[in-house]
């Protein structure tokens, strides 16, 4: 039974995961006992009292107060235990320690942006230190999303009109998947991110170095890195296949047909506009669904992306 429950759950990698799993196991085991017990009783009755003749006479047993009170009170006690247990862990899950490290999270269709205290921004990658409470303060730029990390047993909806928060303390270095669990449209199932749990020193290193975002790299390589970091490839392929948005391959210099019948040259200005104001000129046959990167990418970074797209012929 324990092995089965372990198999059912993802690895427990946060301080509160164990407590959640204990209740999961308790409910599973007690339910299992009830279900097996009742099912066997039912099958036994069906066999033991099977009809022998159409003239069978059955006794009149209309009710039994003691029995009925017993089978009302025992489940009542059990559910009150489950309720209190669930509530107490839940209170811990929503009460972050005051010294928690804060990260701003922005959900947009269909990516996750993480803003750190030194101004660093990472897209679809959350970097956190191990053994330190981390509090995420979250909001959405468009529809409702939900931030879910199974390994940490945390989930919270991300709303467009207010801030919500979630906290966890990762106990193991490594990677865990973040899912969007509130249906948000076409690429909902691609709105994934990865949590990277580092040791405290590695985390500080990461904060310092990766914020530089490869300024010393050649523009094409920097552009490629940015395209990956910013999750452009969730919707834009680089190999010509059709995703939510048009592919980058062979796009440079082409004439882009727009919804209103006009065409526009795929040049520096079009790329820049499409990054900062994506829905101004939408490629024919695609939905106006791309979020704006204004404030996320600066001009030099956009330059680098342009250089990278030029190479995708």
């Amino acid at each position, binding site marked *: 039974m324990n092995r089965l429950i372990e198999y059912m759950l993802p690895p427990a990698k946060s301080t509160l995961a164990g407590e959640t799993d204990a209740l999961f196991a308790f*409910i599973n085991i007690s339910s299992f006992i009830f279900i097996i017990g009742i099912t066997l009783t039912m099958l036994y009755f069906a066999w033991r009292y099977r009809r022998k003749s159409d003239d069978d006479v059955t006794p009149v047993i209309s009710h*039994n107060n003691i029995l009925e009170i017993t089978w009302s009170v025992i489940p009542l006690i059990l559910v009150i235990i489950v309720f209190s*247990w669930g509530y107490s862990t839940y209170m811990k899950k929503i009460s972050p320690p005051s010294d928690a490290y804060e990260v701003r999270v922005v959900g947009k269709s269909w990516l996750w942006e993480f803003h750190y205290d030194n101004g660093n921004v990472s897209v679809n990658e959350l970097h956190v230190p191990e053994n330190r409470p981390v509090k995420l303060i979250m909001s959405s730029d468009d529809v409702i999303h939900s931030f879910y990390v199974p390994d940490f047993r945390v989930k919270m909806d991300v709303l467009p009109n207010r801030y919500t928060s979630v906290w966890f303390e990762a106990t193991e270095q490594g990677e865990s998947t973040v899912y969007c669990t509130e249906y948000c*449209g076409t690429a909902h199932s691609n709105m994934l991110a990865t949590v990277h749990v580092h040791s405290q020193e590695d985390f500080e290193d990461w904060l310092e170095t990766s914020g530089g975002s490869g300024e010393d790299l050649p523009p094409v390589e920097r552009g490629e890195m940015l395209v990956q970091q910013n999750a452009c490839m969730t919707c834009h392929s680089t190999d010509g296949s059709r995703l939510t948005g048009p592919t980058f391959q062979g796009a440079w210099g082409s004439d882009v047909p727009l919804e209103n019948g006009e065409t526009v040259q795929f040049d520096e200005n079009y790329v820049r506009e499409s990054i900062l104001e994506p829905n101004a000129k939408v490629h024919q046959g695609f939905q106006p669904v791309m979020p704006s990167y204004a404030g996320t990418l600066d001009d030099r970074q956009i330059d680098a992306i342009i250089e990278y797209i030029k190479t995708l012929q």
Partner: protein
Amino acid sequence: MATSEASTTYKKIQVRRYKPEENPEKNYLNEEKGLWAWLTTVDHKKIGLMYLASIAFFFLVGGILALILRTELWTPARSFLDADLYNQVFTLHGAIMVFFFLVPSVPTVLGNFVLPLQLGAKDVAFPRLNLASFYIYLIGALFTLTAILTGGVDTGWTFYTPYSATTGGNVIMMTLGVFILGFSSILTGVNFIVTIHKLRSPGMTWAKLPLNLWALYATSIIQILATPVLAITLLLLTMERALGIGIFDPALGGDPVLYQHFFWFYSHPAVYIMIVPGFGIISEVVSTFSKKIIFGYWAIALSSLAIAFIGFLVWGHHMFTAGQSSLANLVFSFLTFMVGIPTGIKIFNWVATMYKGSIDMKTPMVYVMIFLFLFMIGGFTGIMVGALSVDIHLHDTYYVVAHFHYVMVGGMVMAFLGGIHYWWPKMFGKMYSELWAKIAAGILFIGFNMTFLPQFIMGSQGMPRRYFNYLEQFQPFHQTSTVGAYLMGTGFLIVAIYLTYSLFKGKKAGPNPWGSRALEWQTASPPPLHNFEHIPVIINGPYDYHKPMSEFQLGVASKHNGHHAEETVDVPESAQEKA
């Protein structure tokens, strides 16, 4: 006992025994003929059958959509649908199954057919209104089909804002369809409540009301009180989309979580609209095939009402992660557990009814056993997702999908199938093949578990619902689930085939093939146009298997017919008699 009898006034009625006719020449199916007679009929039995046809059609559509989804999910990436189409298909699967199958099915088909028969009435209280609600249902369905053909809808059956306010497609048409459908539901509810209050035959006190009718009564109350809230919510949503009035969309100054509150205020009670009538069927079937008085009549009857009432106060458990206050979560979690208690009591009562019975494992009883097993799993996993800390992990994963399907398909659909097999001989006077029926039940049971058990596991492991793509680690579960879905599809196909076959080649059923004491079995099969050739008089409860059959076949003696021996019975006049 003596005091309660003293407070009851009795009326003497001349009765005689009416044995149901074995070979009636005329019945409701052949008395009025032709398409026009069907389309304009006010006979509750024919309306029930017309609902049966419509509901079977929508179940077929919803089922095919489910198979399309499961086929697409065979591989982690795209198989043959693109993401937008997949999203439309899962939306339609949910919307059609919930609004056009689950909500109306038992009340409109079995309720319509059986309710007046069980009361000993000629029809429901408002037969024309009954026909009107059928046509309202059809108009609602027409709107929805139009929405599907003109752009589709990709919001999920929950229509969550602000996504539903901003996405493309024909959301307005779809919500209007559901809005119109709501009126059908309300009118049926009103009709049933009035019928149960006013048209009980002489002697049928509240304590002798079949449990099926208590369940339908509780359901009707929910239908009347909850459906208007859905109607208002959908209307507000339509206003927002069409006129740009900001109610739920934050871009217009609205609050998206408000929408969720409104929506679940209806849609949680709605799951009780779906399942409570199923409870009614189970009570009837378990007593008939155990040939034994039902255990805990009042416990079962009142727990239906308790579920109906508490069911209104638990909607917030759909929103534990939506950002509502922790106090709200505390209250909703607690009340959710409280609704589990009356449900548990029912299960114990049904099993206790089998104790020392004379159990005949005919197909309806097989479905009762399947129901009890699957519904228990659905119920206990409901405890799981009602526990706050665990729900934070499981919310919006396949665990919830599996839980919901265990309750709705494992519970409600199995109960519905049980009911169909139980009343089929009454409806058409024909027997289906017992062997094929059991084979199909077995296939459905295996197919169902194969489809949804793996979903519990992948949900616990973190597989979110409504995902077009998924991580490769979940593929074995998805594939098992897909195979199970096809198995289930096969099972339903077999059911459709042998039931249709029985209409033409089935053996004659006779008025009471199961030896039941319930009133609907004391008339011919199929019943005459006005149900009984006499006014039934009730002196025993519907589950009094220890009393002779003759006491269940009494009717008001008519003056002109002196062939039969007449006797006099005391029939309580007030409805307050204590059993």
